[in-house]
């Protein structure tokens, strides 16, 4: 088995398209995971047990089942009940929903870390509950969460190859179809690894900087 530069270079344009889809899925999935996670965290904190209990159960359910199975449900089984999603949309929903259950936990811990006195002072100056969340609680709670949230985004990025199982033409899927067509796995799969490294290594470096900036331990 020998490395064939010509073949490697020939595969680059197709793999490049795959990289773009991978990035697209990660970015959209992250936005969904970050937004939905906050909603889940707030619903779980709700005083109303009819809201908090089912939310709690739902979060455990999602976290306790594999992402791959969830993707199959979204893409192959939902059409049976008349919900047709494109591969990328199903993939983004799958990633976003799955990781939202983890970001919800980060939000919950961050919110719980805000001292009770901040809530009481907000009440004493007569802020409404939405004003308290917007101006007092979240601006203090979110910065320390940023490293943990970024960590989940990097983890999500590395799980995007699972989307190939529901026919999303992301990097892994493109590499696999080239490999299957030419019966050569070395170059495409190596390049997949290289692409992931090229993105994840700077991301991890960036994450370290975030940690230094926001983590209380460095202050």
């Amino acid at each position, binding site marked *: 088995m020998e490395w064939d530069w010509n073949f490697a270079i020939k595969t680059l344009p197709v793999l490049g398209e795959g990289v773009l889809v991978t990035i697209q899925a990660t970015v959209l999935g992250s936005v969904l995971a970050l937004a939905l996670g906050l909603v889940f965290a707030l619903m779980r904190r709700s005083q109303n047990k009819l809201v908090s209990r089912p939310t709690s159960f739902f979060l455990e359910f999602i976290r306790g089942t594999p992402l791959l199975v969830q993707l199959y449900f979204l893409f192959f089984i939902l059409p049976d009940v008349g919900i047709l999603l494109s591969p990328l949309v199903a993939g983004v929903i799958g990633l976003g929903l799955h990781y939202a259950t983890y970001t919800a936990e980060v939000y919950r811990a961050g919110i719980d870390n805000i001292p009770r006195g901040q809530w009481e*002072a907000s*009440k004493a*100056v*007569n802020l409404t509950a939405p004003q308290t969340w917007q101006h007092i609680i979240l601006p203090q709670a979110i910065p320390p969460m940023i490293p943990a949230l970024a960590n989940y985004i990097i983890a999500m990025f590395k799980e995007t190859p699972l989307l190939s199982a529901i026919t999303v033409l992301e990097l892994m899927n493109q590499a696999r179809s080239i490999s299957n067509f030419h019966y050569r796995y070395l170059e495409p799969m190596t390049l997949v690894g290289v692409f992931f490294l090229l993105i994840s290594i700077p991301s991890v470096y960036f994450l370290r900087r975030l940690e230094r900036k926001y983590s209380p331990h460095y202050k």
Partner: protein
Amino acid sequence: MVQPIIDIQSISKCFGDLTVLDNLSFQVAPGEKLALIGPSGSGKTTILRVLMTLETLTSGHVLIEDEQLWHMERGGKLVDADETHLHKMRNSIGMVFQHFNLFPHKTVLENVTLALRLVRGVAKKQADERALELLDLVGLADKRDQKPASLSGGQKQRVAIARALALEPKIMLFDEVTSALDPELVDEVLNVMRRLGEETDMTMLLVTHEMGFARDFADRVLFFDKGRIIESGPPEQIFTDPQEERTRTFLRKVLSAGVSRAESAAVAI
């Protein structure tokens, strides 16, 4: 007594089996300076927290300027107040906390302007002007752009007082506001309170362990023990001629502790 600004009618507060407030009643006249003293766990802080709507009542009624605080009328019946009612009632009450509870991510000025802008909808320029007047009153106008973390405890507490004053409450609650301070920082806070007492006609309720200050400052002193008022009267009477044995025991303890603290401070110098 003139029409009371606060009328507390047989209120009780229980946490599980523990009775913190035991069927208490008292009234406060407009402009009165009332000191609440007593051993820890006697319920005095809980009263302030009930008035600030931070703690619900188990039973009883509280009237602020003749209006129910914790209840409202609906269909001719008194029902538990909803958030809208509580929001309206809180407009006339302000509170200063033992641990300051400043907003650490906001500057000193923003701590004071926040409620003016969000609750009263005052424009930024007017809110800033008003806040600077208040910071001037507590002697901290020069710290306007600093974050609370860079202030001393005494300065933090003075900012907290300015913040509470911003909405011009008729009633101010001071909950052990000097207890978390180093001894040398206590006076700067007490001086601000003295000034407020002289220059405004606010009704002030203070829970305090500073017996000397309570004696100078208060029009009336309430002594609490185990969720009940044991004794009440003008400070001269409570401090020099208490009628109840429990008051005497308490005062003897805190005053001798105060003396020994002063002695050790003198030795340290």
